[in-house]
C-alpha cells in the first residue's frame, strides 16, 4: 500500500474524550505515562456535555442517613441484581471522593444553606444524592476535566476517528485512525488503550444521543477479540420530546421529575399510581418508560403520542433557575412555556447498559492492554441504570482505567505494528470511493434506524427479533456496497459509511442477546416472556468473535460475598 500515514507513539491511548476518557487521561498522566486522547468531535463537545441530572454520590449533605451501602443497594436493585456487584461496591464507595476532587479542580456545584454541595432526589435513589449544577452538570464536568487535562499536558487529537485496534499475538499494539478534516491516515502505537466511546443510540430512530454515538468502541473491541456483555440491555429514557418532528427524542431530564414534575395522560390522570404507587414519577426509568408506552398504546396518549409532564405548579422563577435549559429548549424549539403548561414527552433510546466486558478493579477487558470505562463498558448498571449513576461511573471507572492502563504500560514491551493490519484497515476504509454501487450510506442508516426502532425497541418478541436479524443481514450487504462521491476532505457521507459498520455490529449483538434472554428484567422486556426467570438472574449474555463471526455465549453472574448480601437484604 503506497498511501502514507503519520505515526504517533504514546504509553496510553484513550479513545473518547468524554467524562470517562478525560478522567482516565488525567489519572494516567498523574502516573507518569505519556497520554494521547483521540476524539471524533471537538474537545469539550462529547456527549457528556448533554448530561443534565447530576452525579450520584453518597455524601450525605442533605440526607444525613445516606451512605455508600444505601447507594450500593439502590444500584443493585435498579439493575435487578444482574450488576457486577464489585463494580457497584467500588462505585458507591469512591463516588464521593471523585466529586470532591472535581471541585478541587474548579467545578462549582449548587450549594446547601451551609455552603456544601447540594444534592437532589432522583429516580430509584432512596436518599437525595445527586450533586448538580442547575440542569447542566455534564457541561460542568467535561469543562473541568478538559481544562485540567489541557493544562496538565495530554495530547489531544481532535476530529479523528479510530477504525481499527491493532493487535499482536493477543495484546494491543495500537490503533489505526483517520483525520475527519483531511481524510489522511494516522497510526498510533500504544502499550495500553482505553476505550471510552460511549453508547449506540444512533442505531435507533428516536434517540437522545448525539451524532457521535455509533457504538464505535464496542465494535472496535469486538473485532479485536474482546468480549462484549449484556448487550440486550438498552435503556429507553421515559421522557424525550415528541413534537415537533425535528426534536423527537431530545432529552427532557429526569431532574424535572426530581424537582416535582408530574406525569399525566390524556384524561388528566396521574397514571404512575397504577404502575408504581410507592415511587410514582421517581420510579426507575424502565418502569416509567413502559408505563408511558402502555398509556399511549391503550389510547390515553397525548395529541402527538406521548404523556404530559407538568411542572407548572411550581413557581416560575424556581423552574427557570433550576431547569433553565429545559425552559429554553421547550420555548425555542416547541413553543411551549413550561412555567405555564405541560410538556409532551415519550420514550427515547438513551443509554446502553451493556458493552465491553471488564474486570471490576482494573477496567481491563478480556484482551490484555485493552481497557474500557464509562458507557462503553458493561457491568456496573446491570439490567437498568439509575439516573445520576452514569456521571459518577465516568469518574470512578475512568480513574481506575487510567490507573491500570498506565500501570500496564510500565510493564509492557514496545509494541510492533503489523503492516498487514494497516493495509487492510486502509482498504476497508477507502472502499466506498471505489464501490460503484447505488447505495447511499444515509439511506442505509435510515433503514437501520427503522429496523431497530420497530423490532428491537422497548417491548420485544421472538418474531420481531428474528425478523430484525434477517433485516440486519440485508443491511450489512447493502452497507458493504455503499458508495460515496467527492474527495476525502471533510466528507460526512464517507465518515458515515464507516460509522454504519460499527452500528451494524452492535445492532446485531443487541438483537442476538435480546433473542436469547427469554425473560423480562430491567430494561429488557419480552412480551412473550413477561416475568423474571430465576435461571436468567444468574447469567449474563456474552458476545464473542469466533472464526470471523459473531457468536453468543452465557457466563454465570459472580457470587456476591455475604456481607454485601446482607446490605442488599436490608430495607
Amino acid at each position: 500500500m503506497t498511501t502514507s500515514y503519520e505515526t504517533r507513539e504514546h504509553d496510553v491511548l484513550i479513545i473518547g474524550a468524554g467524562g470517562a476518557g478525560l478522567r482516565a487521561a488525567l489519572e494516567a498522566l498523574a502516573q507518569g505515562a505519556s497520554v494521547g486522547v483521540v476524539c471524533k468531535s471537538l474537545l469539550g463537545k462529547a456527549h457528556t456535555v448533554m448530561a443534565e441530572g447530576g452525579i450520584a454520590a453518597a455524601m450525605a449533605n442533605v440526607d444525613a442517613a445516606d451512605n455508600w451501602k444505601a447507594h450500593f443497594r439502590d444500584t443493585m436493585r435498579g439493575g435487578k441484581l444482574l450488576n457486577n456487584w464489585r463494580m457497584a461496591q467500588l462505585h458507591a464507595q469512591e463516588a464521593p471522593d471523585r466529586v470532591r476532587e472535581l471541585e478541587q479542580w474548579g467545578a462549582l456545584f449548587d450549594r446547601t444553606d451551609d455552603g456544601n454541595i447540594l444534592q437532589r432526589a432522583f429516580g430509584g435513589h432512596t436518599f437525595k444524592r445527586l450533586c448538580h449544577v442547575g440542569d447542566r452538570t455534564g457541561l460542568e464536568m467535561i469543562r473541568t476535566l478538559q481544562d485540567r487535562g489541557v493544562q496538565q499536558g495530554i495530547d489531544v487529537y481532535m476530529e479523528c476517528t479510530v477504525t481499527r485496534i491493532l493487535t499482536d499475538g493477543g495484546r494491543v499494539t495500537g490503533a489505526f485512525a483517520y483525520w475527519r478534516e483531511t481524510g489522511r491516515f494516522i497510526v498510533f502505537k500504544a502499550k495500553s488503550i482505553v476505550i471510552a466511546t460511549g453508547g449506540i443510540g444512533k442505531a435507533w430512530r428516536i434517540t437522545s444521543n448525539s451524532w457521535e454515538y455509533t457504538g464505535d468502541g464496542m465494535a472496535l473491541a469486538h473485532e479485536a477479540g474482546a468480549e462484549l456483555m449484556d448487550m440486550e440491555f438498552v435503556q429507553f429514557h421515559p421522557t424525550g420530546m415528541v413534537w415537533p418532528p425535528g426534536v423527537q427524542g431530545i432529552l427532557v431530564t429526569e431532574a424535572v421529575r426530581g424537582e416535582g414534575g408530574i406525569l399525566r395522560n390524556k384524561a388528566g390522570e396521574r397514571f404512575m399510581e397504577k404502575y408504581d404507587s410507592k415511587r410514582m414519577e421517581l420510579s426507575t426509568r424502565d418502569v416509567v418508560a413502559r408505563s408511558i408506552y402502555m398509556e399511549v398504546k391503550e389510547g390515553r396518549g397525548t395529541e402527538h403520542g406521548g404523556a404530559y409532564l407538568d411542572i407548572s405548579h411550581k413557581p416560575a422563577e424556581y423552574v427557570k433557575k433550576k431547569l433553565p435549559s429545559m425552559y429554553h429548549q421547550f420555548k425555542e424549539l416547541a413553543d411551549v412555556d413550561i412555567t405555564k403548561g405541560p410538556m409532551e414527552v415519550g420514550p427515547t433510546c438513551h443509554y446502553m447498559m451493556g458493552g465491553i466486558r471488564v474486570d471490576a478493579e482494573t477496567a481491563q477487558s478480556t484482551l490484555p492492554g485493552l481497557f474500557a470505562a464509562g458507557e462503553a463498558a458493561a457491568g456496573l448498571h446491570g439490567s437498568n441504570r439509575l439516573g445520576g449513576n452514569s456521571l459518577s461511573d465516568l469518574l470512578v471507572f475512568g480513574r481506575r482505567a487510567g490507573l491500570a492502563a498506565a500501570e500496564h504500560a510500565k510493564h509492557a514491551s514496545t509494541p510492533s505494528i503489523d503492516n498487514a493490519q494497516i493495509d487492510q484497515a486502509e482498504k476497508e476504509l477507502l472502499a466506498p470511493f471505489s464501490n460503484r454501487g447505488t447505495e447511499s450510506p444515509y439511506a442505509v442508516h435510515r433503514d437501520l434506524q427503522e429496523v431497530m426502532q420497530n423490532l428491537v425497541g422497548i417491548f420485544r418478541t421472538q418474531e420481531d427479533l428474528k425478523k430484525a436479524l434477517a433485516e440486519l443481514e440485508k443491511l450489512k450487504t447493502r452497507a458493504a456496497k455503499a458508495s460515496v462521491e467527492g474527495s476525502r476532505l471533510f466528507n460526512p457521507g464517507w465518515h458515515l459509511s464507516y460509522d454504519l459498520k460499527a452500528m451494524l455490529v452492535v445492532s446485531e449483538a443487541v438483537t442476538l442477546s435480546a433473542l436469547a434472554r427469554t425473560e423480562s428484567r430491567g430494561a429488557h422486556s419480552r412480551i412473550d416472556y413477561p416475568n423474571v426467570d430465576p435461571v436468567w438472574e444468574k447469567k449474563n449474555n456474552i458476545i464473542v468473535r469466533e472464526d470471523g463471526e459473531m457468536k453468543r455465549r452465557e457466563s454465570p453472574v459472580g457470587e456476591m460475598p455475604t456481607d454485601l448480601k446482607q446490605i442488599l437484604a436490608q430495607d
Partner: protein
Amino acid sequence: MAEATLRVFRGESNSGRTVDYRVPVAPGMVVLDALHYIQGHLAPDLAVRWNCKAGKCGSCSAEVNGRPRLTCKTRMDDLPQDQPIIVLPMKSFPRIKDLVTDVSWNYRVNRKIPPFEPRKGVEWKISQLDVDRVQEFRKCIECFLCQDVCHVLREHDKKEQFAGPRFFVRVAGLEMHPLDGRNRAGLLKDQLGLGLCNITKCCTEVCPEEIRITDNAIIPLKERVVDEFYDPLTMLFRIFRGQKQGV
C-alpha cells in the same frame, strides 16, 4: 409540503461559491434539519459540524442570513421563506470546507490562562450567591459565535493580541471563583489584550446561552485591571511598600 431554498456555501479554504438547494419544510424545522436533508438527498459530501442538535454542545455554529447562529436552534419559520436562506461558515476562522471552519486557535488561547487554584488552607464552604455569579460564565458552550462576531477578531484579525470574549468570560469565571487564589490582571492587560475591547457588545447579542458577556464579565475585569495598574493611589502605595504589580 411547503418548500424553501437554502443558499449554502460550498467550497474549500481558498475558493467557493454558494449553491441553492430546495428543501421541504416541516413544522418546527430548524436550519440544521434542512442541512441534514441536503446531505441525505442532494449533496452527500456537504461538510457540516454538529453533534447534539439541542443547543448544548456548541458545534453547529454558522452565519444564517448574516447573523451568527447555532443552526440547531434557528427555526426555519423565524426566517423569511420567500427568499433564499443564506447559510455561510463563520467568517472569523479559516475555512476548511463548506460550513466547517478551523477553530483550533481558540484551544491555543485557552492554554495561556492559568487554571483554578484554591487558596492554601481555605475552608471549603461556598454560598449559592457566590456560585450564581460564576455559574453564569461556566454556562458557556464554546460555540465561538462571540469570537466570530467581535470586530477586533472579525475585521481586524487581532488574534495574536486579543483573546476574545469567550476567554474573558473564562477568566471572569476564574477570577470571581470565591476560592481562587490567583491574580490574572496582568495576563488580561498584557497577553489577552483586554484593553482592545471597546464595549461594542455584539458578543452579548449573539450568545445562545444569554451570558451577559460585556456587562458581567468584561467590564468588571476592566475595572480590576484599572484598579491594579492605573489607579494613582494604588501606584503610590506600591512604591512606598516596594511591592510588585500583578502578583
